[in-house]
């Protein structure tokens, strides 16, 4: 089945460039992102569904949707 073989796509934050503004947190429909100690955004890979809303919102454009290995 195609569904089981599809590689999951998840949000990845380029942490060193993240400004910790929290814009991504606000738009994530899965509540998958949190700001770690005011330093950077951290995505809970278990919750993320790869919708890309955070990518669009991030003012610094430091989030990418990437395929993650199984």
């Amino acid at each position, binding site marked *: 089945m195609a569904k089981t073989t599809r590689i999951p796509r998840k949000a990845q934050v380029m942490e060193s460039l993240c*400004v910790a*503004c929290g814009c991504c947190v606000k738009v994530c429909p899965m509540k998958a992102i949190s700001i770690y*100690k*005011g*330093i950077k955004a951290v995505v809970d890979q278990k919750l993320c569904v790869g919708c890309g809303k955070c990518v*669009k919102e991030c003012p610094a454009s430091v989030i990418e949707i990437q395929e993650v290995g199984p």
Partner: protein
Amino acid sequence: MKMWYDYLWILSLSYLILGFFNILFAWLGLICFFTPLVISVVKGTKGYCNRYCGRGQLFSLLGGRFGLSRKRDVPNWMKSKAFRYGFLIFFFIMFFQMLWNTYLVFAGAAELKQVVTLLWTFRVSWQWAYHGELLHPGAAQFAFGFYSVMLTSTILGLITMILFKPRSWCVYCPMGTMTQLICKVKNKE
């Protein structure tokens, strides 16, 4: 679900408008100066940016809902540490210069100047918002100076909002950079 703090943009907008009527309202801006610092120093988070900042909300509203943004990526230099920290330092220098000018008026060494300085360069006569209050002229000088800072950063934010993503101001906002730095130091990273 919308929370009460999702409406703080109304306060930010009111603040900017009030400055056109009575410059002394500018003093209220100290709230958005100290709150982020206190939160980052005490709690070690960017709770102000993440929740309460009305200015950020205003930009996402204008650039997002009202579509006043090209929604392009900011250039790489703008998100570089060099630019962000450099802008923070520049902002600080200009801020202390403003405080110095205020001090001079308090000390009686300079006259009150009823101008709002935009982008640290353009002096706009602003007498209509000053009605010769009972307060010391120094208090008014601070109001003019502080309002200049607030209006200048709003203008910069609006420009980058239009050119890039709605909240691109947050990439180089001195308050945001400073609170992130405080968090980094406090949480040792």
